[in-house]
């Protein structure tokens, strides 16, 4: 009996998985597409393989159909609120990396409530609280306090912060926390260390076991993902699907969501514009989104403002169930300090109302509220 996902991932090697995906044939793809009932991880490999590329239109049609059947003609909307850019980690791709000489801020109560006011005026009921990792400024006490401050203003509170202990998650759930996003970034253990050379985040296994701790703590929803652009996205996505498959069976009372953060060109500390290590084309991202949907009809799939407007206007119909809009990725970005440095540049700068209108025009009802604290 496995105790955590670490016991599972060790049964696989990166090279074997990669070779297995690349060896999938058109026959495997057709088998996966035409299958009645549930698809398995081998089907998922076929759907993300290069052999599936000529079948993208079929995949998109099936993905659209399966999504509509499960989620209806609706789209959930949420928005991130950055609380702090303090961080003791070095992540080679991140604007808030410790070695990046930027002005550091952590919002105080008044500043948080000012942000809340602006976000509420946009119509939001679902907020995602975001911080870097620095126990001195944004430890569990600070996060707990932020949740208590915001809980009466929003129907649903999610967070994306450093990995915590099970008892800390339990404490935050009791304060009103609904879901937690924690992306592994890459499942390639050796390369993980290269991308995260310093800080607590450099501990691969501790991060990998975070969803296990979340499941045990009874969090309602766990968000998984790979930072696309670090390593081969196909192999990384297989490991992420394997992770999901394990978690669904182990923590069956938890809901799961998946995101597709695609690394964009970024500035290093010398101010040079750098390209991602691995490029993923728009076609490939569509393939991945559809593959997840065909593999798992019940999974929530999320698309952020990292992607540009034209792409979002079309891709939201192909399996996506939640979107952010009007996002700022700097602490105080809504009310306090709109001009400060963002974690990453967003591509779709349209307001939430513009996004809502676009969705309605496409026959989708924007859903602002899909949780209520009376259900806790």
């Amino acid at each position, binding site marked *: 009996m496995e105790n955590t996902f670490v016991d599972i991932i060790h049964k696989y090697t990166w090279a074997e998985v990669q070779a297995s995906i690349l060896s999938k044939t058109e026959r495997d793809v057709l088998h996966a597409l035409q299958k009645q009932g549930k698809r398995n991880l081998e089907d998922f490999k076929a759907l993300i393989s290069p052999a599936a590329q000529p079948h993208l239109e079929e995949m998109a049609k099936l993905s659209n159909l399966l999504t509509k059947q499960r989620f*209806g003609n609706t789209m959930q909307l949420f928005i991130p609120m950055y609380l702090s850019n303090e961080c003791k980690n070095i992540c080679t791709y991140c604007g808030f990396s410790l070695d990046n000489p930027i002005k550091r801020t952590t919002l105080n109560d008044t500043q948080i409530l000012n942000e809340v006011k602006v976000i509420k005026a946009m119509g939001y009921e679902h907020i995602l609280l975001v911080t870097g990792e620095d126990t001195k400024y944004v430890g569990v006490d600070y996060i707990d306090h932020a949740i208590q401050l915001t809980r009466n203003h929003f129907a649903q509170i999610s967070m994306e912060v450093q990995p915590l202990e099970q008892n800390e998650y339990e404490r935050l759930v009791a304060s009103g926390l609904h879901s937690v996003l924690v992306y592994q970034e890459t499942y390639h253990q050796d390369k993980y260390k290269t991308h995260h050379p310093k800080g607590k985040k450099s501990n691969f296994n501790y991060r990998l076991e975070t969803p296990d701790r979340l499941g045990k703590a009874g969090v309602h929803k766990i968000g998984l993902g790979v930072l696309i652009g670090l390593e081969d996205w196909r192999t990384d996505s297989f490991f992420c699907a394997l992770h999901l498959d394990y978690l669904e069976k182990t923590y069956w009372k938890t809901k799961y969501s998946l995101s597709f953060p695609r690394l964009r060109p970024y500035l290093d500390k010398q101010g040079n514009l750098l390209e991602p290590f691995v490029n993923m084309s728009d076609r490939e991202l569509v393939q991945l989104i559809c593959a997840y949907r065909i593999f798992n009809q019940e999974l929530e799939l999320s698309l952020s403002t990292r992607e540009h407007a034209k792409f979002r206007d079309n891709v939201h119909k192909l399996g996506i169930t939640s979107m952010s809009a009007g996002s700022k990725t700097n602490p105080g970005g809504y009310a306090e300090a709109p001009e400060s440095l963002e974690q990453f540049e967003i591509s779709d700068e349209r307001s939430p109302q513009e996004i809502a209108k676009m969705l309605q025009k496409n026959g989708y009802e924007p859903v602002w509220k899909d949780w209520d604290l*009376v*259900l806790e």
Partner: protein
Amino acid sequence: MGVETGIINMLKIANKEFSSRLFTGTGKFSSSKLMEEALLSSSSELVTVALKRVDINNDSDDILKHLKHPQFNLLPNTSGVRTAKEAVFAAQMAREALETDWLKLEIHPDPKYLLPDPYESLKATEELAKLGFIILPYIHADPVLCKLLENAGAAAVMPLGAPIGSNKGLKTRDFLEIIIEQSKVPVIVDAGIGAPSHASEAMEMGADAVLVNTAIAVSENPVKMAEAFKLAVQAGRMAFEAKLAKPIKHAEASSPLTAFLDN
């Protein structure tokens, strides 16, 4: 049960009579306006709303605003709760804000298939009955559980036909037949009804009502589909009331097999 008026008998649940035996859900529509039009076209008189989707304390909530028609009785549901304790708390909040004792009890600790927890549902029904709620629990097509819920004070039972949202029809048919045979409270087939023919089938079988959501909301033309369900439910119920003949599975013996006893 009920008195004969119009084309089908009225259905009575607790203290309320319904002339429509089609209950509807409010999720998955592409807009609240379209939902309103479809529900009006369905002639439904009992409409379930998820507490998680509406702001129960806000009178101008977009969904609630579109349900302000005298024929629509609201049936708040507890979708999202995982335990009896959470359900009882949510029910009390709903009653206070929406001013109704009616409650569709949904307790599904499994967010993937939204399958109901029998143990927690029974526990919650016992507690809510003591608090005076009119409880319609959404549960598996489990005949024993249905009797236990009836004894605990449920006003009706809502066994599922197939996994929710699956459109698969009456996959639990054999168990539904037993539930209908044994139940002293109305039986409403909920979940899995994907086509008007499925609804007719449930009504012909003797179900007191059906609840439909996905099949209407996700169709190309929800208004038309809602009417199709309305007609199918009426047709099925009429056939039941007219004592639908059972299909004959074998040839009739040409001479009576017991004729020899007369000689």
